[in-house]
């Protein structure tokens, strides 16, 4: 966890005061809605179908138990008792009143949480691997760099009015859990032959109406130079990104239209003007940030504690352990994922009571730390293995031990037509129906890793293009229809899914998905050939045949 110093605290409190003044001027008519809109967006306030929505940043997905309790408090006090964790390490509250927002923000600021730039055409919340700092085999903890980036991009005077939104993601692992290839800038920590730490920099990834996988613009940028290099990318984008058409305004379009080589050359030129300037980091600066991260004092614990052996006879515990518990870099500890995808529930929702209870469990079993991942689940990152049976029992009572992490019912879905004013179709009820169909843990385990992603319109908030199965809501003659793609993936081998055929009506989506899954089960070469790998080997044809033969 990063602990704010007095500079961070001052900025966050000053931002709350500024927003309070902006809301006051809006409410008394000094600001028109048109003038106010970008100001509120830059503080995470959207106008939705029913009410204002409030999006709060959880930078690089790390929360303390104190912070999570404060989020629960906001859900209870200003909203309807729950919050929604999103794919970009934010939490959204759907029913908040404009006049209450400054107070809610002030309460969050007390524990070092803000909503700066969680929407609007500016640099957004910096996201990272939710296992950062605990996954085995990392180069180093990427959150130190994510925090440096968070600070640099907060209230940036030059880049607060970009052509369009701008998102960063960062990882330090070979296995990409942060989906860096579908971000405007993706950063991968690497070490060069001289042993120096730096970044492979990717640019121009993004989904939405015209999806693109990010391209490598520079294979190695030294850590000390990362801010000036990123400044150069943003400067080129700010000046040349398209502003004539909102659908062509993301950096991916600029990169695509110029070509990656030409774009890279422009960036080099802009970089040459500012490299070795005040943005160059030195070791003291990096150390200062690193020293404000608090790491647990791990104990020396056995890798196979008696408690685990004793619990091994309980089949439900074992199913959960096999599914939701991952190896930790520290012997005797484990990373535990808490599924926010119970059968029949809206993906990513958590009640205030659940948040409070998870905060208590984090204090008891995870050094007071919680993580939020882009799959819309929570993580307890430092659990002693001997505590796993006790933790499981507690989570099971809370409904947070569904053993479906990474499986077919661990669905990523956007809010869709239930909340969103841009939606063509509902997302959440489709997710709920699918999670009921695949509720049997044995069936889900038999199917294996399979990511379903659902978006209610082409904006792709549910990342449908990169779901192993993607479901996209479209409108046909006033009715909800869904296009189905297969073979997408969001990890280091990121790919866009391929459409299997004509869109299907709302009532048939779950049947179609079942057909696809059955086709896979009968076509896979071995039980451990994953769905995406089978699609890669076979192409979409056999799946298409299966789905449309009887329709």
């Amino acid at each position, binding site marked *: 966890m990063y602990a704010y110093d007095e500079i961070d605290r001052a900025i966050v409190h000053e931002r709350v005061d500024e927003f309070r003044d902006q809301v006051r001027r809006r409410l008394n008519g000094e600001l028109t809605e048109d003038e106010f809109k970008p100001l509120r967006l830059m503080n995470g306030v959207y106008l939705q179908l029913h009410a204002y929505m409030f999006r709060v940043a959880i930078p690089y997905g790390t929360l303390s138990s104190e912070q999570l309790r404060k989020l629960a408090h906001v859900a209870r006090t200003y909203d309807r008792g729950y919050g929604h964790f999103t794919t970009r390490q934010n939490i959204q509250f759907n029913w908040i009143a404009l006049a209450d927002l400054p107070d809610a923000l002030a309460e969050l600021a007390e524990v070092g949480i803000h909503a700066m730039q969680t929407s609007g055409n500016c640099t957004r919340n910096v996201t990272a691997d939710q296992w950062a700092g605990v996954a085995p085999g990392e180069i180093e903890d990427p959150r130190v760099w994510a925090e440096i980036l968070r600070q640099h991009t907060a209230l*940036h005077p*030059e880049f*607060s*009015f970009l052509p369009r939104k701008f998102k960063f993601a960062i990882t330090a692992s070979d296995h990409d859990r942060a989906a860096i290839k579908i971000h405007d800038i993706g950063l991968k920590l690497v070490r060069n032959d001289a042993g120096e730490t730096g970044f492979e920099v990717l640019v121009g990834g993004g989904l939405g109406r015209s999806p693109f996988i990010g391209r490598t613009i520079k294979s190695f940028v030294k850590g000390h130079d990362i801010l000036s290099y990123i400044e150069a990318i943003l400067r080129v984008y700010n000046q040349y990104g398209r502003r004539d058409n909102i659908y062509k305004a993301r950096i991916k379009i600029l990169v695509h239209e110029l070509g990656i080589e030409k774009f890279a050359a422009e960036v080099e030129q802009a970089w040459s*003007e500012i490299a070795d300037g*005040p943005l160059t980091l030195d070791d003291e*600066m990096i*150390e200062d940030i690193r020293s404000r991260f608090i790491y647990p004092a791990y104990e020396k614990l056995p890798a196979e504690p008696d408690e685990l052996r004793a619990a091994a006879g309980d089949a439900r515990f074992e199913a959960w352990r096999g599914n939701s518990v991952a190896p930790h870099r520290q012997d005797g500890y484990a990373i535990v994922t808490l599924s926010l995808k119970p059968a029949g529930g809206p993906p990513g929702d958590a009640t205030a009571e659940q948040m409070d209870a998870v905060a208590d469990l984090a204090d008891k079993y995870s050094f007071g730390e919680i993580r939020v991942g882009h799959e819309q689940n929570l993580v307890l990152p430092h659990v002693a293995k001997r505590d796993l049976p006790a933790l499981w029992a507690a989570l099971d009572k809370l409904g947070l031990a569904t053993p479906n992490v990474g499986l077919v019912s661990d669905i990523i879905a956007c809010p869709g037509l239930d909340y969103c004013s841009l939606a063509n179709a509902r997302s959440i009820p489709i997710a709920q129906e699918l999670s009921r169909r695949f509720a049997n843990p044995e069936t889900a385990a038999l199917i294996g890793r399979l990511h379903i992603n659902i978006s209610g319109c082409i904006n792709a908030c549910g990342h449908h293009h990169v779901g192993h199965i993607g479901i996209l809501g479209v409108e046909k003659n006033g009715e909800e229809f869904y296009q189905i793609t297969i073979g997408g993936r969001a990890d280091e081998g990121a790919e866009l899914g391929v459409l299997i055929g004509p869109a299907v009506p709302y009532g048939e989506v779950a049947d179609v998905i079942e057909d696809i899954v059955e086709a896979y089960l009968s076509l896979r070469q071995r039980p451990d050939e994953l769905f995406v790998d089978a699609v890669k080997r076979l192409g979409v044809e056999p799946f298409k045949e299966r789905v449309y033969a009887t329709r």
Partner: protein
Amino acid sequence: MPLVKNGQIAADDFVAVADDAELPAAGPVLISATRLLADPERLVARNSPLGVVWPNNRDVAELKPWLDRLALIALVFPTYKDGRAHSQARRLREVYGYRGELRATGQVLRDQFTFLVRNGFDALDVKKEADAHAFREATHRYTEFYQPTGDGHRSALQLRRQRHLTSAS
């Protein structure tokens, strides 16, 4: 539209002259980029202060040869949501070392004052009277800044570096 210059409401000494109009014999004038670039040598040699309105889609590097002889560069925000001139301002000040007046024109509103000043603007052609009077308040809201720009503030990282070195010694 009140002009706020170096923090004070001030009179505008510059007279904007259309491309097809005769330049007055003396006095500060503000002309278009097209007019300037058509005959720069003769125009900068004129004995009165010269200002240019520079569009936000043209590279400011083109101005490099004339920077030390321009008294005013006016950059344009067609709407405040179009942030191109923010980058132009920083390049003029921090990369090319322009020291004359740098004026923000167009939809210049109070909620951008801090950003504008941080990017090197010292004159703001403010859209609303009330905003002009709120200049001091609006630009003194923040006491700390994360990014180093040419505005003289030390960035958070620079302050921490110093703190780090002091505590180490």
